[in-house]
């Protein structure tokens, strides 16, 4: 497996030692909080509502068994026995003591991990599809290109002072699982008419206060042109981007204000200038990275146990139908392990569960694990013949919930149960919806449905791209939940539209229930998903379900 070397071991150890000294000086009073705050933030340590929170990076969401086991150890030794996997593909510890954090960082460094946060108006983490290197629909593993982009952009002198932070997402599959249309630059691998792999290049997407779907600036970009092209985009953004207003500085505003045609012209012109400067050194580096990301040596395992369990064990069958995805090797499957047991906190895993996952990865899965932005854990490479054993172990650990992609597989940001920025809670809403959906026993009938919840306008819960999005707000000192409908984070991306007035904390779960049961009557066949029905029918019938009183009033008038 590739060992990610953003920071080498010596550098990380040095940073831990420095931070240990800083913590000591904060505690003994020689550093004020104002002096200390930026130092702890750089080391991933936040002060939240009820406690400190340590955010640990998981680059490309990729980790191995030893790393997962260490995350379990840290949770038990210094936290409260669990960790929270977030929509940013990292893990957060919600209860560290300030004085313990240097030891936690040191334990992370022992397995090549860290909590160092890149900050400033630079190119931030490049994110990739969580099925990368495993998916059947994948053209190529996007992680080597992601890693090339990261190496190239780090310390690139021209891009240390961009108008604002800058995020790139990449997928190697035409089916977009990396939400590339909600990033500053999104790269989606496609083939041209000649069958050659290249990228659709998307610019100007983003969520948050001003959500925008990225626009295609180039339909097909040959792989070898990637760096000069991305550099051209950044250079245009560097020139046009607004530095006068933080809220207008992201490239999404630049694209929106300038227009995609004008942006395209400028990018293409700049690209024509830059292209000759790239004479192939970047492609050599890429080849080196690709070699390190080479796929594991596939094992030959008889699929007979799978067939038998599939026929005889209804629980296994349901799990297999819901939580498996097609692997590039037909003898394998990708297993998505749901961290969304009905009624549990989305994304939380106990230390025991983490150890089970580490064991399973080592024993059956080529020692690979992934964290998805949907807050689930992936075993990307499991031979089909091992699936019954994997399922049995997951079941024993409370990890076999068969709900991937269904109504209870809800993304929820920490919200006001933990986050200091929150305007309302999001986790309990997710818990109540999932519990209710389970009581109704309808979710397999409902089918693909993405419900996403954020506890404030920062949109960490990606509510804008939920088929049903929920945004928690503070309306005159009371929690209020706004519903958006029709959002989509895939290759057919769209921003959800506000359905109407918000709901109180007591009303929101019944409102969601009305919506999903009402949809069953609206769809034209069991194959028509919620999103497809919404797109066919428009918002009106869904609004009528959500606000039955309004309809009554209209009729009375």
């Amino acid at each position: 497996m590739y060992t990610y070397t953003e920071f080498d071991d010596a550098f990380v150890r040095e940073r831990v030692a420095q931070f240990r000294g800083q913590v000591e000086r904060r505690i003994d009073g020689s550093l004020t909080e104002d002096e200390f705050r930026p130092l702890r933030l750089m080391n991933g340590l936040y002060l939240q509502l009820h406690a400190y929170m340590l955010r640990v990076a998981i680059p490309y969401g990729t980790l191995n068994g030893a790393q997962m086991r260490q995350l379990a150890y840290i949770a038990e030794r210094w936290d409260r026995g669990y960790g929270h996997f977030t929509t940013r593909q990292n893990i957060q510890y919600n209860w560290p003591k300030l004085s313990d954090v240097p030891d936690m960082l040191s334990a992370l460094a022992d397995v090549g991990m860290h909590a160092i946060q890149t900050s400033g108006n630079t190119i931030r983490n490049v994110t990739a599809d969580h099925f990368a290197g495993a998916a059947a629909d994948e053209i190529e593993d996007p992680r080597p290109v992601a890693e090339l982009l990261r190496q190239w952009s780090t310390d690139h002198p021209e891009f240390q002072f961009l108008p604002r932070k800058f995020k790139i997402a990449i997928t190697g599959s035409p089916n977009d699982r990396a939400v590339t249309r909600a990033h500053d630059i999104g790269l989606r691998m496609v083939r041209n008419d000649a069958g050659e792999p290249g990228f659709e290049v998307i610019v100007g997407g983003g969520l948050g206060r001003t959500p925008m779907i990225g626009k295609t600036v180039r339909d097909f970009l040959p792989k070898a042109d990637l760096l000069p092209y991305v550099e051209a985009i950044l250079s245009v953004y560097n020139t046009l981007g607004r530095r006068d207003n933080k809220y207008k500085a992201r490239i999404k505003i630049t694209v929106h204000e300038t227009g995609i045609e004008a942006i395209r012209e400028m990018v293409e012109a700049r690209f024509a200038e830059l292209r000759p400067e790239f004479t192939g050194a970047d492609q050599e580096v890429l080849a080196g990275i690709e070699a390190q990301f080479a796929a594991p040596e596939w094992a030959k395992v008889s699929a007979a146990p799978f067939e038998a369990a599939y026929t005889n064990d209804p629980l296994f069958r349901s799990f297999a139908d819901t939580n498996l995805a097609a692997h590039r090797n037909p003898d394998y499957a990708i297993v998505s392990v749901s961290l969304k047991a009905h009624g549990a906190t989305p994304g939380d895993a106990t230390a025991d569960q983490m150890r089970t996952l580490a064991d399973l990865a080592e024993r059956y899965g080529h020692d690979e694990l992934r964290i998805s932005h949907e807050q689930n854990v992936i075993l990307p490479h499991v031979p089909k013949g091992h699936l019954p054993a994997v399922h049995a172990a997951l079941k024993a650990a409370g990890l076999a919930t068969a709900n991937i992609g269904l109504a209870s597989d809800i993304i929820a940001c920490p919200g006001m149960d933990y986050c200091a920025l929150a305007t309302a809670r999001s986790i309990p809403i997710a818990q109540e919806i999932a519990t209710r959906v389970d009581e109704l026993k309808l979710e397999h009938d409902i089918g693909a449905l993405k419900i996403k919840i954020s506890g404030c306008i920062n949109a960490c819960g990606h509510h804008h791209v939920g088929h049903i999005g929920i945004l928690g707000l503070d309306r005159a000192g009371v929690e209020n939940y706004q519903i958006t409908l029709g959002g989509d984070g895939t290759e057919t991306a769209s921003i959800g539209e506000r359905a109407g007035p918000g709901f109180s904390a007591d009303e929101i779960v019944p409102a969601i229930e009305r919506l999903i049961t009402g949809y069953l009557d609206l769809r034209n066949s069991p194959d028509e998903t919620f999103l497809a029905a919404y797109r066919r029918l428009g918002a009106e019938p869904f609004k009528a379900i959500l606000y039955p009183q309004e309809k009554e009033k209209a009729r009375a008038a």
Partner: protein
Amino acid sequence: MSRRFTPKVVTANDLIEGDVVYLSSNDVWVRELHRAELIDDEAHADLRLLHAQGQPGIVVGAYLADAKAGPNGPEPVHFRETFRATGPSNYAHGKQEVSPHRA
């Protein structure tokens, strides 16, 4: 005319544990809102806040939060302070689980 002053408590996070604390009338940082000093007077509130901010070795981010008198002492006014006072609501942990050093 100045806005009418509404009662306050001084609250912050503990420097080491990070958990929510309140300033009591006898200058002890307590974990329970109902044991906090409820302050009715604006000038006194400012003094108490200054006193809290002068203890950077004990607490972080001291501020005045609205509170109201209840039968057992101060009670929160805004829901954010309710959650700060009781801990996460997704399941009983944090404050509800242990209070390592009840003052």
